[in-house]
């Protein structure tokens, strides 16, 4: 059963195109999706998923389940960076620990979207409010990471004044970067537009936002495969600790997510997406924020872990694995 789920996930065209992209780099083909096409496709995917979520949110309304899920999502976005920070501190300095923790506290929209399309292929539906959860979980980790860093370096500053440079974070800028970055903004904006225009807007936009979705996702994952594979060589510098972290933490987080989903009583589709949100790590929004707010941290650590290990792991093994566990526990 597990194997058949993995197989039907891997035989998903988008996942296969991800492999094709990795393969292209490995055999040194000169295949390349020229920028800004992939950039635009990522905007398109956010737009499409947000809009669809909004339209469906109107249909389903906001019940108790929705409120509970959103609360749980916010909670997870705060807890994950907290506990991982202390694990990461064992091996990394404060800056890198904070940056990696923030990365894993946040989410990967593409992983979410791939899980959604996997559900679609299996004919399992999910609630539009999960898109709101996606939006909610993108940013808090950035704030939590920075607070942790602030506290930790304040401690340090007392111990040894010279080593640590005084950080005067521009909080308004941090908050702006966290909540108004283009991903969150477009996702939430499209969701609201979906809510406002409802079924009528859907009919006009869906040939573009729905029918193209799967194909664009395939092309986008082709590019992600290229990007991830080009970074494979970074893994040497990353070290086994971070590699193990990047493989195990998703499973731990998915397990926590699964427990919460069971507790709230989410249906299977929503439960999978919730697990995937918990298990995924950000490789776009958070890294961009970290470069500005924690320039001392090494981007090749936090980007590589999230992009080269956690992302492919979730895409290929994680999604069907989590669904398998859900199928077992829910039935």
């Amino acid at each position: 059963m597990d194997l058949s789920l993995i197989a039907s996930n891997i035989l998903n065209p988008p996942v296969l195109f991800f492999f094709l992209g990795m393969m292209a780099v490995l055999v040194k083909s000169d295949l390349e999706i020229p920028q800004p096409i992939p950039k635009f496709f990522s905007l398109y995917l956010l737009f499409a998923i947000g809009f669809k979520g909004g339209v469906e949110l109107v249909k389903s309304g906001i019940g108790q389940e929705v409120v509970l899920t959103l609360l749980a999502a916010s909670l997870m976005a705060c807890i994950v960076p907290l506990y991982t920070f202390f694990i990461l501190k064992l091996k990394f300095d404060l800056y890198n620990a904070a940056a990696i923790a923030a990365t894993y506290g946040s989410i990967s929209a593409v992983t979410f979207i791939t899980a959604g399309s996997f559900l679609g292929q299996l004919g399992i539906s999910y609630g539009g409010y999960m898109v709101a959860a996606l939006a909610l979980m993108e940013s808090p980790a950035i704030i939590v990471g920075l607070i942790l860093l602030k506290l930790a370096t304040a401690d340090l500053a007392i111990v040894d004044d010279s080593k640590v440079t005084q950080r005067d974070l521009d909080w308004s800028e941090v908050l702006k970067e966290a909540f108004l970055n283009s991903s969150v903004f477009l996702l939430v904006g499209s969701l609201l537009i979906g809510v406002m225009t409802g079924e009528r807007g859907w009919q006009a936009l869906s040939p573009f936002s729905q029918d193209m979705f799967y194909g664009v996702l395939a092309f986008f994952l082709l590019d992600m495969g290229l990007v991830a594979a080009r970074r494979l060589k970074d893994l040497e510098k990353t070290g086994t600790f971070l590699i193990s972290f990047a493989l195990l933490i998703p499973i731990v987080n998915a397990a926590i997510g699964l427990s919460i989903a069971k507790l709230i009583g989410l249906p299977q589709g929503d439960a999978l997406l919730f697990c995937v949100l918990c298990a995924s790590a950000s490789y776009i929004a958070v890294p961009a924020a970290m470069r500005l707010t924690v320039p001392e941290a090494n981007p090749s650590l936090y980007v590589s872990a999230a992009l080269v290990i956690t992302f492919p792991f979730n895409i290929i093994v994680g999604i069907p694995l989590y669904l398998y566990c859900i199928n077992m526990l829910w039935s």
Partner: protein
Amino acid sequence: MQPAKRIEIIASSVELAKILDGLDKSGVVGRTVISNVSGQSSTGEMSDELVNNFYIIAFCSRDRVNLLVENIKPILDKFGGVCYLSDVMEVQSINCVASV
């Protein structure tokens, strides 16, 4: 034709707003930005395919340069990126003449 300076700055696109601010503060209003430039440096922190670099060229009068360096250097020191100066002769630029 009169002497002027070319300032070239390359850094990650997430820093662009800060650098443009620095240019504004230094009174360097004439400038050109090339986006989506890719790069590599020796810091081990190779450039991101997901976050691209930008390349700014600004020509300005020689006496503006010191102020600019003061304003830009701390940003690059903190966030990374490079900045180089060189000498040019100005054939045509209403702006730059005006600012001399």
